[in-house]
């Protein structure tokens, strides 16, 4: 058992948290590069700041297109829950591919997206462990009301080992789900 004082343990815990968030930031930078290679761009960045950790992060990806375009038929939403809760025991990422079936303003989607709605989607997707269609009731309930169809994927982020693992367990399944939902590169 460590003979550190309580105060020293707390300082060490914070150092641990900063380092963890630094690695998490690196993970999502790698994901961004992989998504870029697949034709998707960060629309709202998942802002992980190692020196000011948070328990919850949001991010959104849209297909690469001309600068200034705001409406899209598809989007990928990311909700990263760090703290454990009633149904998760470790940091978990929900990636949801949304098919709007018509050009939709992503700013509006972002503004209507509630963290509780996202948590319900995460809870539903967790049951399956692999990509799963999200029911309309989950979509409409303060998550993505404008979405017509969606597929959700959950990944316990601490189990990701390296860039290749991110590619095979996160990026590829998401891109594949987007293609299954009828997304075609312009």
């Amino acid at each position, binding site marked *: 058992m460590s003979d550190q004082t309580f105060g020293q343990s707390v300082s060490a815990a914070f150092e641990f948290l900063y380092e963890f968030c630094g690695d998490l930031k690196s993970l999502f930078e790698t994901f961004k590069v992989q998504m870029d290679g697949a034709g998707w761009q960060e629309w709202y960045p998942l802002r992980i700041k190692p020196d000011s950790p948070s328990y919850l992060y949001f991010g959104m990806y849209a297909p690469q297109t001309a600068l200034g375009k705001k409406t899209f038929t598809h989007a990928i939403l990311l909700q990263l829950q760090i703290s454990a809760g009633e149904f998760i025991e470790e940091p978990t990422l929900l990636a949801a591919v949304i098919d709007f079936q018509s050009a939709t303003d992503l700013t509006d989607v972002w503004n209507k997206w509630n963290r509780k709605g996202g948590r319900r989607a995460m809870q539903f997707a967790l049951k399956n462990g692999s990509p799963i269609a999200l029911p309309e009731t989950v979509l409409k309930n303060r998550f993505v009301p404008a979405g017509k169809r969606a597929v959700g994927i959950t990944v316990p982020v601490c189990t*990701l080992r*390296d*860039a290749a693992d991110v590619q095979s367990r996160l990026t590829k399944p998401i891109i594949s789900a987007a293609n299954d939902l009828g997304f075609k590169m312009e």
Partner: protein
Amino acid sequence: MLFAERHHKLGRDDSLTHDRAEDLLTSTVFQLLRYMPVSQFLALLRLARPVECKWNVADADRIDVECWTRLNASCCPDVLLRLFGGDKLLQMVLIEAKLFSGKSGSAVGEGPTKEDENNAAELLNPDQLVKYWQSITKTANELRVPRLMIYLTSHLTPPMKELSESRREVKDMTFAWLSWYDVWLVANADPSSLPAKDLAEILACRGFAHFHGFRTKQCQSITSSGRFFKIGSWFKHVKLVLPLKHHFWTQS
């Protein structure tokens, strides 16, 4: 240099050493690349993403590296590579490296810089990449050697706006974009080589490493009592002096 970087001697945000940080990183990286096998150096050059052009890097067996070679009065690119096959010069590669700043002297919406004004007689394009490309053209043509241009930046994904601006200026420029993260990828691929290991480490210290796992897997548990501040005894020593009358103010 490596040790200064490891210890963040330039500051984590380089607020005081902006220009120096860029030059120091460029110098350190290309110095270390010189000690690495040519095949790895070539692999890095081949990772560059061409901007609407064909990208062929010659099969060289030697690469000479020069930093800040003056091409003319106003052109001093960060790195000039000469690729050789035996004694024959096969290709010249210019590299303009950036850390936090964008390329200077944009061709769009900006007037010429002081440097450009001084060099007005040469009528070079104000766009930094285009200017360097034009400057190397004469030499490359005389030597009948193909030339390439690389824009090396800290972006994770291609800085499309800057690249498109340069592309619009010169249609036949063979240029590509490369990221410091790409340099890390190549260096990290060979952990058996000491220069490669140092290069990967230095870039990781600068935040240019791709995700390669969580470093610390266990957090020390906090065993002492979670309470270090107790409330409850604060008010017991405070004596309140209340006015005798029930109403201590009267409405006039």
